[in-house]
């Protein structure tokens, strides 16, 4: 219980701080690294919430796959001494305002969300939420291969088409001529 809270705070801090640093640092490679920490932090949250498979996928796909893409891309497009000067200030102010209003609005929305207030005025704690059945790999496997309600064979097939299309697209864009 307490461990969970401590873990939460650590991870939350990691996410917040590294998110912030990822968008503030001048060095692009560092930004990628900070992003990695954020993603890993998210993965930890997934684990903490009992979504082991999701966490694993997060680490494998994001941290493993996407980050590699980023690093390659950065190395390919990076020039030495390519220190980006910061954006002009009015843009930064505008961005800050946008982010600020966005945060405020989203948080307001979330804190007043009806589900929170409706069920006897109480919210499930993490422990209560985790008290049900664990999600097993079998369940996930069945969900991904079934065609009934709450089974996802069709999206699974469809997303494969999407990935294929992305590959073709990527290849097309990447081809020399």
């Amino acid at each position, binding site marked *: 219980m307490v461990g969970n809270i401590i873990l939460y705070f650590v991870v939350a801090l990691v996410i917040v701080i590294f998110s912030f640093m990822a968008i503030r640092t001048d060095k692009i490679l560092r930004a990628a690294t900070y992003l990695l920490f954020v993603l890993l932090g998210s993965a930890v949250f997934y684990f903490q919430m009992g979504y082991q498979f999701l966490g694993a996928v997060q680490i494998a796909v994001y941290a493993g796959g996407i980050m590699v893409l980023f690093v390659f891309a950065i190395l390919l497009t990076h020039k030495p001494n390519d220190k980006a000067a910061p954006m002009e200030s009015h843009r930064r102010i505008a961005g800050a305002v*946008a982010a600020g209003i966005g945060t405020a*609005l989203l948080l307001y929305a979330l804190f007043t969300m009806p589900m929170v207030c409706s069920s006897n005025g109480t919210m499930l704690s993490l422990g209560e939420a985790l008290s049900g059945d664990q999600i097993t790999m079998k369940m996930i496997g069945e969900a991904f291969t079934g065609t009934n309600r709450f089974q996802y064979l069709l999206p699974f097939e469809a997303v494969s088409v999407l990935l294929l299309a992305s590959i073709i697209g990527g290849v097309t864009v990447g081809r020399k001529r």
Partner: protein
Amino acid sequence: MGITLPILILCLPLFMFLLLGIGGVKMSRKVAGILGILGMGTTMTLAYIVAFTYFFSGNPEFIIDGVRQQYQVFDVTWLAFTPKLVVNLGFLLDPISAMMLVVITTISFMVHLYSWGYMEHEGGFQRYYAFLSLFSFSMLGLVVATNIFQMYIFWELVGVSSFLLIGFFYRLPSAVSASKKAFIVTRFADLGFLLGILTLSYFTDTFNFVSMTSNPMNVLAETGGATFMGCSVLTWAMVLIFTGGMGKSAMLPLHIWLPDAMEGPTPVSALIHAATMVVAGVYLVARMFPVYCVVEASMTFICCVGAITAFYAAVVACTQVDIKRVLAFSTISQIAFMMVSLGVARDYMIPGEHYSGLGYMAGMFHLFTHAMFKALLFLGAGALIHAVHSNDYTKMGGLRKYMPITHWTFLIGCLAIAGIYPFSGFFSKDEMLAAMFARHWFWGAWMTMVAGLTAFYMFRLYYLIFWWEENPEYEHHKPHDAPWQMSLPLIILAAVSCVSGFIPFGELVTWNGAPYHIHIEAPVAATSLTVAVLAILLATVMYRKKNPLPEKFRNALPGLWTAAYHRFYWDEIYLFITHNIIFNGICKAIAWFDRHVIDATMDGFAKVTQKVSYSIRGMQSGNVQAYVLWYFFGALALAIITLICII
């Protein structure tokens, strides 16, 4: 009476107009002239037949128990505004229309004949005859109108024929502007006429003269005592209708077009602007006479307008240089005379007055005689102009030796208009003055004075043309009498002017059809004769031989003379109003407003759109981050604004 003759009377001139107007280009002058004269001659004959049949056949259609009837020969529907308010075209025979048929066709025929000589060398000869036919048609249609709307229709048509004929010499800017002026001024007056008809017919539900005049009290009853701005609506209606007459008959203040109308060929002036069209106003009042009598105020109005105009025109006529202008003002004055005469007449017996209907008869009588002698004078003036090639009496003088026929006929005309026994003018004028005196001594005295002025300026004119001193230019270019086509009408008209006073007019034309026996009122006749003779004597003294007397007179009253010479500045006032106020002040302002306010507003919408379009183009800055910023703000704004609105 069958309808063939009346229809022919109307259709023949119309047909001649179309024939000469459309086919004229292909005709020689001679053919056109002969056709025109023949056509008019036939019309005249037919009109005589009709008129004489009406007056003298004794047919019960026309006369019952000695009272002449109004007889509608035909009356066909032309346009039905509402089931009740229907415009008919018809042919009304009654004493005044029959009399007018005679006058119009006679003068018209004379003018046709005369013009053959007068216009011989002018271009557009065929067109001229076409227009004359058009005018004759319109004028005939006007006088035989069975209803006020038909009258209005032909009223407009005579206006336009007058326009066309005044502007006959259309290459001269002065003729063009004179014709424009004539048309627009009369048009303005016709507006009043139209409003009058609108108002009147709204109450009577009919346009028909017979049904309106046969029971005028009914008309009054139908208005139900409605008033507008303190006057009964019937007064308004009748005064407005009279306004139309004022325009056509050149009453003050709508007289300004008539002197300018002299820009037209002189025969045209004789026909239209002396004998026929300009008396349409008088005719109109006579036509509506019983209804006018119902509203006393309108009669008073007519009297006042007539009296003022008569005097004004007579004074102005004393100073004019252009002989046609003098005649024009004389015409105005004489028509005003008739107006006053009508104005003093009544259709009911005023206790103690025997003469209530006399003014009507006298006015009509004067209309008749005036048409003859004024046409004579104009045609004579035309002969003079033809000989001297100028309208200006300073270019004339001493012409009696060169142009005897013209001289004698002109003199007869002058005597007639001056009211000297036994010429026709004496009789009619005498009756008029008698009627006026009978009504109130003021009218009589005032108009006697006008009669004196008339005699004076006519003889002034006569002497200045035929006596005074010879123009030295005659040696180069000797003036001579006009050819027979021109002389013949002069002689005929002079003869008529001599004898027509003896026509028993009162037997033929009275307001109610009942005969009236004319007898000379001795005191009145004596007074007017005396005044006339004195005036003639004065003119003789002043103008018979070249002498400095006129110059002295002029210098004695410089202000009056200048003002009279400039016709008391009416033209200038009108010019100021029309040009400076209406044209520059209103029209230009409105046109400016239209372009720079209304149109600019419409263009302004386009311009503003364009401006906005340019001003928001920064939104599309080309930077994807800015795009996303807009995107994000847009999404947030949607949520927030809806949130605010709902909460």
